[in-house]
C-alpha cells in the first residue's frame, strides 16, 4: 500500500509527524511489521487479537520487515497477480471499502471520503442494509441493537467503528463488516 510521500521541501516534517510506532521506525506500508501493543491504547482488548500476538510469536518490539524470497511460495505468478489486485483496489479516486453484513448475501462498496463524520456513515449503512445500530459509548461500544459495525484496519485488527478519530478511521479502514448477534458480543475476528 502506497504511503503518500511527504515532499522533499518539507524534509523535517516527517520527524515531527505524530505516528503510532517506536521512534526511529518508518511507516513503510506493507513491509513494516510493527507489533507494538503498548502504543495501541485505542484498541480494545479482543481476546482473539491477543491470542494472535502470542501464537505468531511476535514480540513487543518492532520486527524486521519480512524479506520476500524469489519464487516463494510456489504459487504461479498468474495466480499471485490475480489475487493481489483485490488488495490494491482502494487506491485511486476516493476511499472505496467493501461492506458486508452477516446474513446478507449482498456485498456493497462505499466511498468513505463522501462522509464527514461517523453519524453520516452510520445513517448511510443503516439505509443500505436496512438495520439500525445501537447507541455508541466509548467504554462499552454499541448498545441496544444486535448489529455492531466493525472494521478491519491496516494492521489486520478488527475494531469497533467509532473508536478512533474520524480521519484516522478513514485512512486506516480496509473494509467494514456489520456483525450480528452473539458474535458481535465477543467481537471476534470472524472466520
Amino acid at each position, binding site marked *: 500500500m502506497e504511503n503518500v510521500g511527504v515532499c522533499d521541501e518539507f524534509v523535517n516534517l516527517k520527524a515531527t509527524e505524530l505516528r503510532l510506532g517506536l521512534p526511529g521506525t518508518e511507516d513503510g506500508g506493507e513491509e513494516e511489521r510493527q507489533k507494538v501493543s503498548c502504543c495501541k491504547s485505542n484498541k480494545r482488548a479482543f481476546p482473539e487479537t491477543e491470542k494472535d500476538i502470542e501464537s505468531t510469536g511476535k514480540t513487543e518490539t518492532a520486527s524486521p520487515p*519480512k524479506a520476500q524470497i524469489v519464487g516463494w511460495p510456489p504459487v504461479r505468478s498468474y*495466480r499471485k497477480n490475480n489475487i493481489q489486485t483485490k488488495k490494491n483496489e482502494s487506491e485511486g479516486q476516493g476511499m472505496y471499502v467493501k461492506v458486508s453484513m452477516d446474513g446478507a448475501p449482498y456485498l456493497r462498496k462505499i466511498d468513505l471520503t463522501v462522509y464527514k463524520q461517523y453519524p453520516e456513515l452510520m445513517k448511510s449503512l443503516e439505509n443500505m442494509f436496512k438495520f439500525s445500530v445501537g447507541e455508541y459509548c466509548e467504554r462499552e461500544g454499541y448498545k441496544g441493537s444486535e448489529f455492531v459495525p466493525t472494521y478491519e484496519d491496516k494492521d489486520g485488527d478488527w475494531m469497533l467503528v467509532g473508536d478512533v478519530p474520524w480521519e484516522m478511521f478513514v485512512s486506516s479502514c480496509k473494509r467494514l463488516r456489520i456483525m450480528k448477534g452473539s458474535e458481535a458480543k465477543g467481537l471476534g475476528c470472524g472466520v
Partner: protein
Amino acid sequence: MDRAIKLQLSTSEMNYFPDEVIEHIFDFIPSHRDRNSISLVSKSWHKIERSSRHQVFIGNCYAISPERLIRRFPCLRSLTLKGKPHFADFNLVPHEWGGFLHPWIDALSKARVGLEELRLKRMVVSDESLELLSRSFVGFKSLVLVSCDGFTTDGLASIAANCRNLRELDLQENEIDDHRGQWLNCFPDSSTTLVSLNFACLKGETNLSALERLVARSPNLKSLKVNRAVPLDALTRLMSCAPQLVDLGVGCYENEAEPESFEKLMAAIKKCTLLRSLSGFSEVAPICLTAFYPICENLTSLNLSYAAELQGNHLIEFVQFCKRLQLLWILDSIGDRGLEVVASSCKELQELRVFPSDPHDEEDNNTAVTEVGLVAISAGCPKLHSILYFCKQMTNAALITVAKNCPNFIRFRLCILEPNKSDHITSQSLDEGFGAIVQACKGLRRLSVSGLLTDKVFLYIGMYAEQLEMLSIAFAGDTDKGMLYVLNGCKKLRKLEIRDSPFGNAALLADVGKYETMRSLWMSSCEVTLGGCKRLARNAPWLNVEIINENENGRMERNEEDEREKVDRLYLYRTVVGTRKDAPPCVTIL
C-alpha cells in the same frame, strides 16, 4: 504351456494378420507409454505403430526436433508440447529462455501433417504462429494453451476466423496481451461447431453481443468460461441460451445487485440441469455464489481459488451442499473449520487444492489453514488421491495420521509457507511425517516436500517411494547424501527439481547414467559448481546441461577461477538432438 512360449506364439501368430487388423488392435491402446512399448516389440510392429499413431506427447520440446517427430509419426493428428521447466511458473526462469512454438508449426505446416489438436504448456506462442496454424490445418479442431505467453488477441482472431472446424479454444492462465480488438467477432456466422470456449484469462473488455451471438449459434457448447468483463446480466443471457452447459466459468463484478437481476440469474441457473463444473468468481459479490444453490448438488468440480472476495463463511455455506464434489480448488480463507465441513459433506472428493489467499503473510490473519484441516480432510474423504495444500504450520503427528487415513495418495504436495519451519509442537524436523506418507502411499507418483527437513527424509523417500515420478524439494536436506538417496532409490523418477538445498557436485556426478532415465533435473541456489557441471556435460553428451546466469545480460566468462563458482541455476535434460540453437545470452549450454 510355458508362459514365455505362449507369448512368443501369440506374437508371431499375430503377424499373420494383415497390417490393418493389427493397426485396429493398436487403436484400443491409447496410452502413449503403452504405444511406446508396443513399438519396441519388433520391426514390423514399430512400423505399424508409427504409421497409425495419431497422438503424441512430448514432455520437453527440446528433447526432439519437429522434423524427426514428423518423420517418425507422419499421421500425427494430436500433439502435446511442454516448454519451460516447471519452476518458470515461479519466476525462476528468464522470460526469453526458450520454448518457442514457431519451429513446430512451421515444420508441421511444411510437411502437411493433418494436425487437429494442439495442447501447449509453458511455451512461447506468437501471433504469427497462431496465424500460420490457423491457415495450415484444415481439420484443426482443438487448441489448449496453459501458462503460455507471447501472443495477443490478434492471434486469437486468426484462430477464430480461419479454423472452420474449431471445437475447442481453451486458454488457461496465459499472459495474453489484450488489444481490445474484436476477436470474438471473427468467428464467422457459419461457425457452429464450438464445444468448449475458455477465455477467462483475458484482461480486457469483451464484445458482449458478439459473445452472445456466438453462444446462441453453438448448440454443442458444453464448456464456457468467460472473463471478468462479462457482467451479471450478460451472464444470465448467456446461460439462458445455453442451458446445456456442463462447465461454466463465471467472472463478473456486481456492486449493487438488483433483486430483479438476481432473480433472473437464478432462473437461468435452475435450467442448467447438466451443469457439473463451476469456476471463476474472480471479482464477484457473494450474491453470485448463492445464485447457484439450485444446482450445487449436481456439481462434481468446483474451482473457487480465484474468489478472493468470498469470505470463509460464504464458502462454507455453499460447499456443504455440494455432496457430489470430486474436485475442489479453494483459498485458505475457508479455514480449518471450512475444511471440516468439506470433510463431512463431500464424501466423493478425489482432488483438493488449497491455495494461500495471502502468500506473503502481509495481512497476518488467522484464517489460514493448519494441520487440523488436513487431518480432517484425510479422515472424512476416503477417495482422496491428490492434494496440494498451502499452510502456515504442520506437525509430524498430523502427517502420520494423514498417511494412515489416506494410503491411496497419488499426488501429495505440501507447502508450508515459511521455509525451514519445524513441527510447531515438538520443534523437530518433519522427516518422520513425510516418511510416513511415502511409506503408506505405495502408489505415490508426485511429491512436494517443505518445512524443516534433514537428509533423513530423503532416505525414506529413496527407500519407500517406488512409484515416484516427480519430486520437488525446497530449503531441505543437509548433505549430498540426501540427493543421492533419491537418485539411487527412486527407480521411476522422471523429474527432479531442487532449490536452495545444500546438494553439490558429489551428488550431481555420482551416477550420470541416471539422467538418461529421467526427463529433466533442475537445481537452483544449490552447491553445484561450474566445474561440476562441465564435467557432467563432458561425460554425458546426450544431455543438454544448461546454466542460467544471474546476470541476464552477460555471458559467462571463460575464467579458470570460475570453475569453483557456484552455479545459480542448472537445468539439464536428455535429448536426441543435441544443443539447441535458440538459447538467449543468459543461458550457457555446456
